């Protein structure tokens, strides 16, 4: 955002000549528009029977362009540092321009008889006002659109950083407990360690590097989920009764938001572990169907007696926000709780 501001500030004049004419492209633009303006003024001047109409039209065109630049300069000084420009001001300027142009034509048809000096004033004054007002109007409209553009960019940047915040990361508790399990295995069953270390590196690599993308291949996310489940199996041991039915996705063009499904899986393990019952039941299923990814999950749990039943925790709240940001009207999430089981069903559109 600061960078944007710097760019914006650098457009402000460092000396008045630069400030007056702005960028060089404006001079080229004004050379281009001066031709039709010249023709229009020449036609106007000829209609009121002025001698040397070509010379007068040329001077008037020059004055007009200078007036536009002067108006632009005034607006630039006035609007510097102003965040918003009132719409009424813009409308007022448009009305002023239209009124003055109308007056010029009206006055051309009905000049005051025999009063040359006043007639001249009644021509030149509206003419100068039109050119100044046009310059101001152009500059202000440009400022308004620039401000709007900047706001849009800022809010886009905000929602991007919000997304990153909402994104679930590998929890340090999971990591340290897993390291402890690997440590334990390395003492008693060291032959199991090498493949597990490779899996842990994959897990870390994915959660550190790959999740920076907004969408990742589903195949990668599923590999992460499978690795995660393998480590949870080791952590829980015999208590776990797990049934997994994850489709073997081979297409690499199916994409999904990273670390989204894993939040549900983490929750399932966390809540189903939190019982004293002999066994933990978890069912995980994932299918692709047409343009949809279908995910469902069921886990045993003890209904908390003290907490409110719908307290899904921060993770779930973040998932909801992410779904709303990334899959607006492209997802269906259904959470159900019974006395002994918690079920999640999520349908997502493939990206």
């Amino acid at each position: 955002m600061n960078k944007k501001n710097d760019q914006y500030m650098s457009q402000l004049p460092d000396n008045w000549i630069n400030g007056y004419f702005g960028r060089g492209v404006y001079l080229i633009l004004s050379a281009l528009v001066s031709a039709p303006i010249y023709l229009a003024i020449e036609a106007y001047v000829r209609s009121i029977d002025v001698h040397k109409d070509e010379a007068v039209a040329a001077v008037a065109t020059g004055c007009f362009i200078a007036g536009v630049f002067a108006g632009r300069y005034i607006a630039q000084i006035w609007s510097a540092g102003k965040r918003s420009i009132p719409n009424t001001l813009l409308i007022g300027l448009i009305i002023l321009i239209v009124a003055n142009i109308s007056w010029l034509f009206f006055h051309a048809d009905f000049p005051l008889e025999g009063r040359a000096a006043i007639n001249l004033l009644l021509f030149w004054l509206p003419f100068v006002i039109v050119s100044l007002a046009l310059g101001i109007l152009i500059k202000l409209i440009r400022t308004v659109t620039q401000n709007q553009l900047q706001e849009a960019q800022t809010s886009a940047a905000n929602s991007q950083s919000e997304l990153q915040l909402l994104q679930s990361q590998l929890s340090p508790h999971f990591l340290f407990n897993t390291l402890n399990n690997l440590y334990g295995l390395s003492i008693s069953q060291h032959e199991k360690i090498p493949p597990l270390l490779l899996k842990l590196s994959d897990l870390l690599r994915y959660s550190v590097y790959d999740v920076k993308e907004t969408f990742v291949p589903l195949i990668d996310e599923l590999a992460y989920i499978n690795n995660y489940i393998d480590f949870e199996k080791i952590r829980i041991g015999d208590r776990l009764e797990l049934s997994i039915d994850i489709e073997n996705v081979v297409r690499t063009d199916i994409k999904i938001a990273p670390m989204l499904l894993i939040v549900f899986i983490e929750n399932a393990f966390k809540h189903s572990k939190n019982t004293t019952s002999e066994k933990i039941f978890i069912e995980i299923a994932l299918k692709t169907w047409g343009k949809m990814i279908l995910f469902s999950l069921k886990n045993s749990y003890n209904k908390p007696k003290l907490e409110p039943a719908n307290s899904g925790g921060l993770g779930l709240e973040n998932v909801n926000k992410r779904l709303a940001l990334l899959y607006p009207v492209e997802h269906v999430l259904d959470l159900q709780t019974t006395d002994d089981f918690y079920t999640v069903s999520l349908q997502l559109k493939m990206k």
Partner: protein
Amino acid sequence: MTSYNCLIVDDEPIARDIVQTYCGHLPNLHVIATCGNALEAKAIMQTQRIDILFLDINMPVLDGIAFLKTLKTQPQVIFTTAYKEHAVDAFDLSACDYLLKPFSLDRFIVAIDKAVEKLSLDVINTSSTVKKDDYIFIRFDGKYIKFNTGIYFMPKRMATIPRLLPDKA
């Protein structure tokens, strides 16, 4: 050599195995049982005397800290956890030591030494064999404090000792 009864409470089987293996290296430690949650541990502690308790914090239903609060007579508690955040709570409950998983055998032995030291203090505390006019030296805060058993009542908890002393001994 005095033998100490130990109880291991952790919901992860491998974590329990590690502590059990470590205890096996020290002949004076006798592992009574290992349990996967605090409620099982509570049941065991009602039937047996436990000297040293290895306690995980994040456990199903009743966590380690809450469990410790339910105990009337506390054994020497050594927390074993991956959670650094709870250290302050743990020491508030006068935990003996706090081991961050994964921990080495060396670090484990340091924790056991602390527990044994405290336990032997408790033995002096509770035994009636100390004669009148005997002196007891207690290491406290790096210094030795001399107690004349004939004058001072021996407090159960170390934390109350400084308040009972007249001035620096």
